[in-house]
């Protein structure tokens, strides 16, 4: 038996906020942006944008194709959750999009932000005028999440 236990809490929102803050800080520090450990926050932001693009946030676990299952659990198998893990992230993405890219479609916004992240990861900087938009988006995202 484990020496301790605790309720699992989802940390997705706080990590997303932290990663967005790091991404904006990398824009002022090209050396840090190209550092291998910077790829982790940048890749996470890219992955969030892909989930946003395809409405693909749901991620329920499924058991294996032959997993033995029974109904002997005393608790209902589906528990009531306050809200899905991604609600704060999705709301913050929508808000940042309204603020920074009010006239563009979701696909266009995602493509531009992804291009910005790729430039940052590869070159340590983002070309203007995209840089201002990327900075504005992730600043707004980090503030509102």
């Amino acid at each position, binding site marked *: 038996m484990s020496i301790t236990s605790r309720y699992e809490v*989802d940390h997705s929102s706080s990590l997303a906020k932290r990663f967005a803050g790091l991404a904006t800080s990398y824009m002022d520090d090209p050396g840090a942006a190209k550092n291998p450990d910077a790829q982790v926050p940048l890749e996470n932001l890219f992955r969030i944008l892909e*989930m946003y693009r395809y409405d*693909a946030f749901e991620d329920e676990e*499924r058991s294996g194709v032959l997993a033995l299952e029974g109904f002997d659990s005393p608790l209902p198998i589906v528990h009531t959750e306050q809200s899905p893990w991604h609600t704060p992230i999705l709301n913050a993405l929508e808000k940042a999009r309204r603020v920074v890219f009010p006239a563009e479609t979701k696909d266009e916004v995602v493509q531009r932000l992804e291009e910005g992240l790729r430039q940052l990861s590869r070159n340590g900087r983002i070309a203007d005028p995209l840089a201002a938009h990327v900075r504005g988006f992730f600043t707004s995202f980090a503030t509102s999440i």
Partner: protein
Amino acid sequence: MAVAQEFLLQECKNLRDLLNKTLRYKYESADSRIFYGECSARLASLEKAIGNAADLAALGQEVIYLNELANLICRLERSSISEHSWPFVHELKRIASAICTEDTLAGANTPNQIYVLADGGLDTYRIHPESRRPAYTQKRLLTIVFPKSLKHFVLLHSILGHELGHAIWRCSKHKREMRDQVEKHIKEGVFASPDATATHIYSSVAPLNEKGFLKACPASMKQGNLFPNYANWEAWCEEILCDLVGLVIFGPSFVASECELLTSMNPSMTGFGPGHPPTAWRLNYLLDGAKILGYDARPPDAHPLRADIDTFWAHLETFRSTDPWYSVFTGNQLQRALSGMKTLLSRYPPTEYLVPTFDRLQHLVPMLKRQIPPVGFGIANDGSRTRENVDFRHILFSGWITKTSQPAMPVDIINKLCEQAIMQQIAINIAESA
């Protein structure tokens, strides 16, 4: 704060030592480098986060990820390359790498990094994609789990087509298309709603054995609370789609492996599970789906394989439950759903199963019957050697045909010959491309 932080930073150093001592051997060298690089990136990022943690709450969050990383490194260290069928894995990886992809910083269609594990018995078949939630990860790992006890039983490994379905479902870029298939084609009739499915399950015309199953379930389980209290209807819908994906990826071998494995886990074929629809429903729609896709095509009467192919499909039909209650989809529904899946999978070759010619099967099956690994190699009438690229799924199909044909051959021998054939075919393909 300082004590906890210091302790966790020391643990980061310990993990780096562990990482440097591990992943040294037993992987293909390219894989080893990638796993090492990924773990190093995760560790460096975590170490920085721990060093910069603003408060105890932040530190408490990082310790969870640190533990997960330690577990991952230890799991990767236990290479099980000698415990699973690596020729089958080689081919499965080709499919998974083609379709289980994401757009990433590195570019479009970046494949997930695959890790293979052998563990446990029959019920361990699994493909586990790493979560897409924010975490200290760069590459996404895809862990494929084989039953350790079935190392050489490559014919049964076709069932991993179903698990590939779940992995594809969890790729952001495919999710919308997969979900659309379920919404447009699966959610009709018996699956129009959770209520409609529960009504069918509790129908007065349900077979007696199914009524008996319901009686044996907890007394509190009723038609009105089956979904969501005792079973997950959305999970059932996903499982159905994944069965259809498995069919489109592995063809007849997938139907045969589901028939054998599902009925070995549930010999009476009665009932259902919280996350899976009734076994007998699944086998019925798979048998129907195979017909719709033309997988059950027969050669002309005079063809030497006609009797063997007839016997194979007749054997699979013995797994069909004939009561109409077990047929939950119309032919039209299945046709549309399968067509949607083929459209998606055909965009990522070699994912889609392509029906072999009867000449191809006539080349493979007799070889197997002579206990020769069935590969794309032969000696022509003029004595010259012929080499052909044979899809490993056609080798598996020839194995299933041989399994039900006469004279009977031991099933472990058939599996080993097919496994050797897959390995030899890889070598032939390398020689052909050189």
